[in-house]
């Protein structure tokens, strides 16, 4: 999995590509834990993510919690069909911002 970060002041875009499986979720969790200080505007670009299971969902939820705590804003963009299915099924799409 590729993780590319693009920061502009308080705004951070994390571009993800590949399989967001359990092992990759651990790597992403470390990134999230270490990169969100001072960030109040977070975007996950999911364009290259082919699938996500519960380990990946938990990291996305962790990021959402951190943004909520910081009074910030978070969104997922370019979500593919399989990931969208999972977000719908688990109810994540009810409380997360998902944009084109």
């Amino acid at each position, binding site marked *: 999995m590729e993780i590319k970060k693009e920061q502009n002041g308080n705004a951070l875009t994390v571009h993800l590509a590949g399989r967001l499986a359990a*092992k990759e979720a651990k790597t992403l969790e470390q990134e999230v834990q270490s990169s969100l200080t001072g960030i109040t505007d977070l975007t996950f670009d999911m364009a290259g993510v082919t699938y996500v299971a519960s380990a990946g969902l938990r990291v996305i939820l962790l990021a959402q919690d951190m943004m909520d705590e910081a009074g910030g804003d978070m969104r997922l963009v370019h979500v593919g069909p399989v990931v969208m299915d*999972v977000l719908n099924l688990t109810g994540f799409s009810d409380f997360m911002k998902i944009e084109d």
Partner: protein
Amino acid sequence: MSDKEAVLTVEATLDGLDVVNEFVDELLKDVPCTDEMRAKLDILVEEVFVNIVNYAYAPGTGQADVRGRISQDSDYIITLVFEDSGKKFNPLERKETLSADAVRKRAKNRQRGGLGIFLVIDIADEIRYEWRDGKNILTVKKRMV
């Protein structure tokens, strides 16, 4: 044509998940399934296997066996049997608490439990748990085409 079958013994670790994925890839090599169907199966395999990684032998490690079979008819039904000799654990025990509504409510309240097995139950066409000869045996079936 007879069904295609294969058996794998693998360390129950997160690195082992890559080995299981390759094993499933090989089983599905000649199956004309869509990328989407394949991705759903990946989710199912990950959830079941990571469950073994996280719970069966914790805090130690151990091995898991995976037996796979593909029916050679137009449905291409895949059967995967996951076995481990770890602690007895029936992931379907709390099945009734895993309705879509309940999971969504919990997600909204930011409770993380049960997500993985909920996905397994949704994706699999059939799922069965047995405890036999000191082993956890979880069988999942899914039509791939």
